[in-house]
């Protein structure tokens, strides 16, 4: 573990809360969170427990980041087509 990772992990340790939501709760709530973000609202302020979980959980964060991209395409256009995506895999 290098210094940057240790620093980030130490931050996670100090940001630990007595009660944190589970990955299942995160899965249930994350689409609403993404929707709030997409409509320009301060999703982190409205759903602090979800934001906290995303900061702590790499798997849920990876899923959230992909969902955020796809929702953005949906709202703003520019979604890659299935054929484009197939061609990008080689």
């Amino acid at each position, binding site marked *: *573990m290098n210094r940057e990772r240790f620093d980030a992990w130490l*931050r*996670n340790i100090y940001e630990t809360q*007595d009660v944190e939501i589970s990955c299942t709760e995160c899965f249930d709530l994350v689409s609403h969170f993404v*929707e709030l973000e*997409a409509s320009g609202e301060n999703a982190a302020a409205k759903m602090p427990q979800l934001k906290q979980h995303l900061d*702590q959980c790499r798997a849920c964060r990876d899923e959230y980041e*992909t969902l955020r991209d*796809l929702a953005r395409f949906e709202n703003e256009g520019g979604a890659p087509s299935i054929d484009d995506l197939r061609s*990008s895999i080689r």
Partner: protein
Amino acid sequence: MTLMSNARTNEEWLVDLRASGESQDAAIADLRGLLLRAALYFFSRNLGDFGGLNRDEILQRAEDCAQDALIALMNHLEDFRGDSKFTTWAYKFAINIALMTARQERWKGVSLDELSISNEGAFFEWTLQDKSDGIAPDRSALQNEVRETVQDVIEHDLTDKQRRVLIMMVFNEVPMDEVVRHLGVNRNAIYKMLHDARRKLKSGLQARGFEVGETLALFSSQG
């Protein structure tokens, strides 16, 4: 007539998916396309996980993810509360399965038993590795105290399971879903073990007088 997938309202998605005949078939076909796009998008950003597969195999994995996601979603249709677009809600089923598939492919054949053992050699090596030049000696001494405290809590205050999960995920960067598979539990159980470990580490540090601001400042701003 087949509507464009994004032309349906949330209500229309639900009505069509619960219908029978042509309108249901059309809705399912459109939904499957959305799920496939989500899986392909995830895969296209995580191609490094698929080093052992050729293109056709990767594309087939994406088709399988879309199919599995479709089944999972249809089983959870009643859970949709309408607090997001239906498509946003739907995507997450495909992303979840795509992530598990990708990580499983990357970690295929790796023995997690070896990566879960409290390898003291590796731990000390990490401590030594991180000793760096050019840091004021008192600061360096404090940093070492923090690391020793963390190490002490890991070795003495965590349960065996908490320690194994922590070593796998934090020190060896094993993904959550591989640990899930290895231990035969679910994500929630793994998250809880890490959460409990973090709570013990936090109180261990605070009990030794390492409060948040000054401790983080000890390690940050070093570039």
